[in-house]
């Protein structure tokens, strides 16, 4: 009896393993639209977000796919399960091996990705950073989704608006500790709070990290509510964090307000409930669209990433490359009760 069982188990296990590879390999690149003619060699861009299964990056991917269809190029997206730089690097090296025209990357950590991105650039692959910047020098162009200092001031403003009389304790719920974009926004927000007399009565008590994981973020939010009973506002500059914080606040029936960066569809009910009367974001699909276009302009040589170069992108307009080869998508957009119903993303 055990004889047959043993062989059966071995076969099933081995078959499962072998079968899993081709069956699931579907998840690969999309076909270019039939109507256009692909260039030679074909334009292929691999997107490596901070993590997969994150609605923010999936939204950006839709914009990138639109651009790919317009330009007759290939688009695919791969990335780690967790927003962790050590897990992201193997994806960069494996993407480089496939010799795409360009790689677009939202770095989980600014320094950890430098050796692999530098190696990619040495092999002639164009590197475009988006959302979250690798260290300067490890990319050809970085597409900043929003003007950093603008967001820093806005976050401080919204916290001020939601705290009674612009007074009281506030806390920040961020993404990963290494995340360059969140860290930049938080730094600018802290600067604004410290230097502008208007915010003199706001006290930023702590910053906690939810790693863009819904469970972790919820746990951190609960921790904030328990540790700081006088907390007035939670500022979460991450779409995963702001949703988790709002859910926790609602569950616990707390008076704490929540603001930060979030998707209108996610936050609509909390705007109407008064838990999150104001927050902001930008058009995430546009970020993906712009990133893909910039990749194509780098590949065909229209731009090289040098400061001062200008270019035009259909549907979005004219852009100029700034210092450190940064291009900014545009200003942040404020959502509140007056306009929350107009958006669908």
């Amino acid at each position, binding site marked *: 009896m055990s004889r047959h069982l*043993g062989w059966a188990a071995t076969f099933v*296990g081995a078959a499962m393993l072998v079968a899993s*590879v081709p069956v699931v390999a579907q998840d*690969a690149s999309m076909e270019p639209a039939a109507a256009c003619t692909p260039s030679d060699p074909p334009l292929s861009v691999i997107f490596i977000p901070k993590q*997969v299964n994150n609605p923010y990056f999936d939204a950006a991917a839709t914009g990138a796919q639109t651009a790919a269809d317009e330009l007759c190029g290939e688009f695919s997206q791969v990335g780690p*399960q967790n927003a962790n730089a*050590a897990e992201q690097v193997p994806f960069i090296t494996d993407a480089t091996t496939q010799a795409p025209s360009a790689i677009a990357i939202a770095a989980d950590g600014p320094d*950890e990705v430098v050796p*692999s991105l530098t190696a990619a650039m040495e092999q002639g692959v164009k590197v475009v950073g988006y959302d979250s910047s690798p260290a300067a020098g490890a990319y050809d162009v970085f597409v900043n989704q929003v003007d950093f200092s603008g967001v820093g001031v806005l976050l401080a403003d919204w916290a001020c608006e939601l705290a009674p009389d612009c007074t009281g304790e506030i806390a920040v719920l961020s993404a990963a500790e290494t995340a360059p974009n969140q860290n930049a926004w938080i730094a600018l927000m802290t600067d604004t709070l410290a230097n502008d007399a208007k915010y003199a009565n706001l006290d930023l008590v702590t910053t906690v990290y939810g790693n863009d994981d819904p469970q972790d973020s919820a746990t951190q939010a609960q921790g904030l509510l328990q540790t700081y009973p006088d907390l007035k506002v939670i500022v979460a500059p991450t779409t995963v964090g702001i949703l988790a914080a709002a859910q926790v606040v609602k569950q616990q029936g707390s008076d704490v307000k929540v603001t930060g960066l979030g998707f209108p569809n996610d936050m609509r009910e909390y705007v109407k409930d008064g838990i999150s009367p104001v927050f902001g974001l930008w058009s995430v699909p546009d970020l993906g669209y712009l990133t893909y276009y910039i990749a194509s302009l780098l590949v065909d040589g229209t731009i090289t990433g040098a400061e001062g170069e200008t270019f035009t992108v259909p549907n979005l307009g004219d852009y100029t490359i700034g210092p450190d080869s940064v291009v900014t998508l545009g200003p942040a957009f404020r959502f509140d009760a007056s306009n929350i119903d107009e958006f669908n993303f």
Partner: protein
Amino acid sequence: MTTIRRLVRWEMLLAILVVALIAVGATVSPVFLSANNFSNLSAALTEVAIMALPMALVIIAGEIDLSVEAMLGLSCAVLGFLWAEGVPLWIGIPTVLIIGALGGALNGLLVTRFMLPSLVVTLGTLALFRGLALVVLGPRGVSRFPEWFTTFGFRNVPGTPIPWPFVIFAILAIVLGFILHRTWAGRHIYAVGRNVEAARYSGVRVDRLKLSLFTLSGVVAALAGVIFTARFASARADAGEGMTLTVVTIVLLGGVNIFGGRGTIPGVVLAFFTLAVLGNVLRLTRVSTEMQSIATGALLILSVVVPMVAQQLKLAIERVRRDRHPPSVGHIAGAEAAGGEEAI
């Protein structure tokens, strides 16, 4: 004899699996067989593989060291801290190796002198070392290491597709393989794993041996921390989080018995290649990361189930053979003894 035959069979299976995976890889992706790819293949699991070698020795001796990932983190944090304070690397690196030895010795002392189970001790030091790492470096990261250091971590030996860290892995594998399979120290490790009391009464210095193994595990984990820092050009206190599980996976997949007394270094090396090729093939074909976890888990379950099943098979076959060819009169006593043993 039987042990060797069974072990050779497991390593054979692994070798066949690696070849099969390579064949799948070559078919599914045109870039799989490139030199570039071989270089990347081993890179992602380098630190894990390096830590798996002493871990195999520890597990064969009947213990376990769960604290390796935290020692890697502590080593990373101290190295970063020292570098940020201006201490040159040629002082920093030996310092963290010494810290690794001390941490490993702590594990060893608690297990041998205080007779505490290694599972519990190393679970405790897992938390302790990680906590120390966070105290030393805090949440920040240290970067801007010298170029020779980051080149060592990330690049290949000039003219070959072999990454420098892989060279370290190869050297360690050869040395530890030699110790385990060709020296009396290795035989003692197996003896202690099979039956620690019998080993003790046979004159094996069990405590000294275990202390040395834990210390070795600590030093190698610290070395892995140095390599990790070099490879990512960045030192952080949370380095290595989650690695212990992967290290144990490679060791068990390599045919090392979790209860001690069985296992080989070649098996561990083959297991490393299996996981490395599997991960690489799945990434190149853009299979989702969930599937990668499922595949790794399935492999691990197989690695435990198949040897057990193989043993049942062997016993069953021997029973059948004995029934078909009953021993002649002169051997009745011997056959009864053998039959008696089997009944157990």
